[in-house]
């Protein structure tokens, strides 16, 4: 069933290999972009919500100095 | 205070007033009319300098040059369609008028067409001669421009309405209107090219008039909807 005998012929695809593989490379790039960008956006949103929560909770108890250090950690954690 | 019993709604009078207002405004500041025409002339005279001055090259490119020049100059003058009203607050009055907004938008687009598209159409035969367009293609050029430029104004009005509150909205306006311009460009230049090779070109005209009718019905509705949404 396998059309190509060996690996090197599969890569070369008798001359058209470059085009086929570059097309698939672009395809891979688009897939990666579409998978990665929501993940990064999700991390950013969660970080901002957590910071919003910490600010809301933190304002009551902690003094401002520790709170600002918390802010730094919040940003560092991103 | 006479209570307003069922007054006869004089939408037409309001449109005429709007058109009269826009035309007087255009003539009060001549730049509004002369700018598109000057731009059109400049674009048309750049091409021979950029490509080649000899006859056969130019005569083949002439329809495309003239039509793209007209399209760009209409686009350039579209920016001020709603923006001037937005800046001095008269757009709110337009929205607060009892008359249907699409009708008023149609009036504004008509006056914009008169001051831009129509003048370009009048100028085009002159440029056609300048670009060695074959003689029997000048009439089709004039007719396609006459039918096509209103569609440019109508389709552009939607983009203008969407970008009315965006400061540097010029480029975005072009980006939004171009896809709507492409069919008109294709059929118009197709007609002129067909006429240049003395082939029948009435089929293209039919399509152009289809676009015109489609634009006349749908564009004011979309532009009015956009204006209401943008001004919330």
């Amino acid at each position, binding site marked *: 069933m396998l059309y190509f005998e060996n690996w090197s012929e599969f890569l070369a695809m008798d001359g058209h290999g470059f085009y086929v593989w570059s097309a698939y490379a672009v395809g891979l790039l688009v897939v990666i972009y579409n998978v990665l960008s929501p993940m990064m956006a999700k991390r950013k949103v969660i970080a901002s919500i957590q910071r919003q929560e910490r600010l809301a909770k933190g304002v009551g108890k902690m003094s401002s100095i520790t709170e600002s250090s918390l802010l730094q950690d919040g940003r560092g954690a991103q | *205070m006479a209570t307003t019993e069922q007054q006869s709604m004089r939408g037409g009078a309001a449109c005429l007033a709007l058109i009269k207002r826009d035309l007087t405004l255009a003539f009060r500041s001549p730049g509004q009319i002369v700018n598109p025409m000057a731009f059109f002339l400049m674009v048309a005279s750049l091409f021979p300098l950029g490509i080649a001055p000899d006859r056969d090259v130019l005569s083949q490119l002439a329809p495309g040059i003239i039509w793209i020049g007209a399209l760009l100059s209409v686009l350039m003058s579209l920016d001020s369609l709603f923006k001037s009203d937005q800046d001095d607050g008269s757009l709110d009055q337009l929205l607060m008028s009892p008359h249907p907004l699409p009708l008023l938008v149609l009036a504004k687009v008509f006056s914009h067409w008169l001051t831009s598209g129509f003048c370009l159409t009048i100028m085009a035969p002159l440029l056609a001669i300048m670009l060695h367009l074959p003689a029997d293609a000048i009439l089709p050029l004039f007719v396609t421009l006459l039918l096509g430029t209103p569609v440019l104004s109508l389709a552009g009005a939607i983009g203008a309405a969407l970008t009315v509150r965006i400061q540097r909205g010029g480029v975005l306006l072009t980006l939004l209107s171009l896809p709507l311009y492409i069919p008109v460009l294709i059929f118009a230049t197709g007609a002129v090219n067909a006429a240049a090779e003395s082939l029948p070109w009435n089929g293209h005209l039919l399509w152009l008039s289809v676009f015109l009718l489609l634009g006349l019905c749908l564009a004011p509705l979309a532009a009015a909807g956009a204006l209401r949404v943008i001004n919330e």
Partner: protein
Amino acid sequence: MLFHNLSFQLSPGDVLQIEGRNGAGKTTLLRIIAGLSSHARGDIFWNDLPLASAYADFRLASFFLGHKPGVKMDLSPLENMHWRLQLKNIQPVESLLCEALEQVGLYGYEDIPCSHLSAGQLRRVTFACLIASKAKLWILDEPFTAIDIDGVAWLESLIDEHATNGGMVLITSHQPLSDRKGNLRKLKLEDFAGDALEVFDGDY
């Protein structure tokens, strides 16, 4: 949420002054009532018809005066009034227009391009449109800006006169209005303030 569960009734002869600090949402409220903005949840009725179905009559009978004068700079006051009144479905009569302009103190300025007029005079052109439009409901957003002292007094008397012949006025202003005719009501937006400073979210 700028404000919530706010409601009031305006009947002929009423003058309602909406007060609030900057950013309390005065202009937003006026634009919602005028039908220019549809952010709100809740209903507005005009002659006990939901506004959504009575737009034409509502706009025939109302006049919205915003922050910007709504006047074309290159045109003269007369020309401006022509198109403004036509928009309100009123056939402008030359003598009436001149009379309205005279009433607002712009006698002699009828044919001068508005670009030569001062900000106060521009607002007077809008007042002339207001008078000539014979609208029942006046929605005035900070009408007193750029108006001199006697102008303010004149405008107050105009509002009272409009209210006594059965008109309604909705006005936002920082200046305390003198309650001569006893039909002035005040509405402080702070009593209805929402929790977060965000234009209240639209529908579902």
